[in-house]
């Protein structure tokens, strides 16, 4: 593993010429305290090389056309001026709680790392000797670099300090809940989680709370044959202002992958979902709802998804909804790639922006690339205002305007929320969303 000094001293070049972003990369790396790595040592060294080769993205990169990477490139995080609040989401649900403070696992605040059908350890403690996660750490991320480069995920593999490593061997009914808290107002957090579901296993992973002032999170998920993985993440307005997250998933034969995320936060947020469907008859759904209000500062939320179908008779579904007001920006870049031989693929993608005023914008870039001939793929994207007729209908029944708008926003988000299979979890999210919308309805 190359240490900081070595990396910083190198002047990365392509064919001997310095590139525009090289100085930024050097500065970015110099500001990090790079872990030595145990079982991750090889992966981190490899990441260091890959990162030097690809560099950090600039505003001219096609993949970064709609989102300026400057805030992720900056060497330091900007301190938050909003107080941290503890989320009570999922509090009523029996779950295994794992607490991270400023991105570091807090054993005292967490439940015991044990559960039937589960093997849990944390990256900072486990990253000494051998570990099962060596087969996954940075591996899924590396696979996800083709055909599009994702430098911040590479940076994460190189520099992640902590995270959770979960091996699931059975059907686990009790969800694992990652609770993020922040203590330091300027915490610049990098977490890297690995979840491996063995054949026929099942797990629900919940994520809530504030990772830090700035965050870079990677979640690598391997869903083996017949296994089922459910993921639900919720980010509140005071959680973080700048963040980038990547989910790299590998979905095996007859396996199921479902991810839903809710975000009401962010000056500058980008979530990338990179899903490879590798086994026949598998199902992968990824959905998100983002609600942005630019009145309390900038709001920019980018969902970027890349789903690869490499097997037969698989189903994929992307459902992305954004509700924007007061100059908020919503971005969606979604791609379905159907590889040769991935016959009878059923791919679906919808992205929709609901603009509550004229100052907001929603940009969508849906893409299909298909190399098989017996395939059903559809995509749609809409941007629009509230349906005035529906608003009048509700008001004519006596529902006040603000409350009617809340109902119509929930109506707009319904398809995305429906991607949460568990009724209790969905109702909990829905209740919180309703509360949040109602509390801000007048603004």
């Amino acid at each position, binding site marked *: 593993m190359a240490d900081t000094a070595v990396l910083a001293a190198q002047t990365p070049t392509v064919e001997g010429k310095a590139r525009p972003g090289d100085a930024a990369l050097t500065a970015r790396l110099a500001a990090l305290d790079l872990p030595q790595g145990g079982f991750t040592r090889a992966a981190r060294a490899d990441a260091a090389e890959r990162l030097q080769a690809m560099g950090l993205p600039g505003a001219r990169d096609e993949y970064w056309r709609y989102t300026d990477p400057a805030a992720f490139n900056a060497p330091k995080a900007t301190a938050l001026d909003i107080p941290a609040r503890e989320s009570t989401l999922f509090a009523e649900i029996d779950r295994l709680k794992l607490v991270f403070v400023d991105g570091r696992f807090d054993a005292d605040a967490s439940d015991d790392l044990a559960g039937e059908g589960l093997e849990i350890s944390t990256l900072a403690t486990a990253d000494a000797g051998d570990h099962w996660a060596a087969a996954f750490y940075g591996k899924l991320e590396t696979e996800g670099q083709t055909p599009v480069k994702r430098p911040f995920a590479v940076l994460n593999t190189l520099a992640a300090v902590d995270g959770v490593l979960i091996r699931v061997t059975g059907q686990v009914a009790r969800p694992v809940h990652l609770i993020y808290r922040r203590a330091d107002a300027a915490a610049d957090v990098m977490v890297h989680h690995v979840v491996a579901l063995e054949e026929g296993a099942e797990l629900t992973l919940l994520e809530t709370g504030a990772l830090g002032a700035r965050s870079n999170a990677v979640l690598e998920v391997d869903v083996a044959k017949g296994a089922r993985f459910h993921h639900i993440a919720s980010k509140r307005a005071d959680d973080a202002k700048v963040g980038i997250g990547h989910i790299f998933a590998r979905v095996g034969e007859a396996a199921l992958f479902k991810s839903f995320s809710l975000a009401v936060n962010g000056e500058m947020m980008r979530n990338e979902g990179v899903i490879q469907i590798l086994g026949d008859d598998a199902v992968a759904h990824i959905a998100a709802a983002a609600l942005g209000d630019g009145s309390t500062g900038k709001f920019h939320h980018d969902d970027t998804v890349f789903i690869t179908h490499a097997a037969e008779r698989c189903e994929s579904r992307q459902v992305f909804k954004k509700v924007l007001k007061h100059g908020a920006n919503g971005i969606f870049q979604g791609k379905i790639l159907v590889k040769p031989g991935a016959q009878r693929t059923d791919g679906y993608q919808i992205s929709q922006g609901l603009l509550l005023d004229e100052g907001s914008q929603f940009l969508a870039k849906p893409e299909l690339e298909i190399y098989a001939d017996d395939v059903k793929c559809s995509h749609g994207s809409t941007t629009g205002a509230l349906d005035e007729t529906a608003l009048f209908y509700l008001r004519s*029944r006596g529902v006040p305007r603000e409350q009617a708008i809340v109902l119509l926003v929930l109506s707009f988000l319904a398809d995305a929320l429906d991607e949460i299979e568990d009724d209790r979890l969905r109702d909990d999210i829905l209740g919180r969303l309703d509360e949040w919308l109602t509390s801000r309805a007048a603004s």
Partner: protein
Amino acid sequence: MLEIKNLHVKLEEEDKQILKGVDLTVPAGEVHAIMGPNGSGKSTLSYVLSGRDGYEVTEGEASLDGEALLEMEPEERAAAGLFLAFQYPVEIPGVGNLTFLRTAVNAQRKARGEEELSSAEFLKVVREKAKTLQIDADMLKRPVNVGFSGGEKKRNEILQMAMLEPRMCILDETDSGLDVDAMRLVAEGVNALRSPDRSFLVITHYQRLLDHIKPDVVHIMSNGRIIKTGGPELALEVEKNGYGDLLAEAN
């Protein structure tokens, strides 16, 4: 109950006068029908009374139990006791019919300073009323009007009316898109709500709905005005001879 005086209305977006001086009084407990050819302004009248955007009142007034209607927000009019059964009920995906009904009922109770209904109380009442309209549990659970047939949508309108217990009900072409059986069911629902302190304004093209909902008074509307008012026999006359004679007479 409902009093409309010299109501003139134009479209907000264009210079088009739709209502050109409507005078109409519906006393408590009565059922009035408005008939008239397409484009005569019947639906506009119902929208203006219930407060839909897009219209501009240039002259005249309308009141419900002495309260000026036209200055109120749509939700205030609803709380004051006005109800419009839509010609085309709106689909609202993702919002359950029950949630919608309970939100509406409680919003109105709140506006009137009454206690909100508890879940249990509400469910008991809604199930009872749904049953008489042959609305099953599944229809109550489904998103508002989504995937409902024409008849189901109209029955759902009547269910909302039954739950909200308005004093003044406007039915805008409630018979459109209904077969004979569905029409009978809807009419029965309406008739069950008739009472001495509730009035109805039934807007329709055809006399057939009025076979089931017997009006006390029939108005003929044309070109933005009420051109003739009479008893139920007026509807029969229209059915027999069309609007031609009446229009000629009015001109």
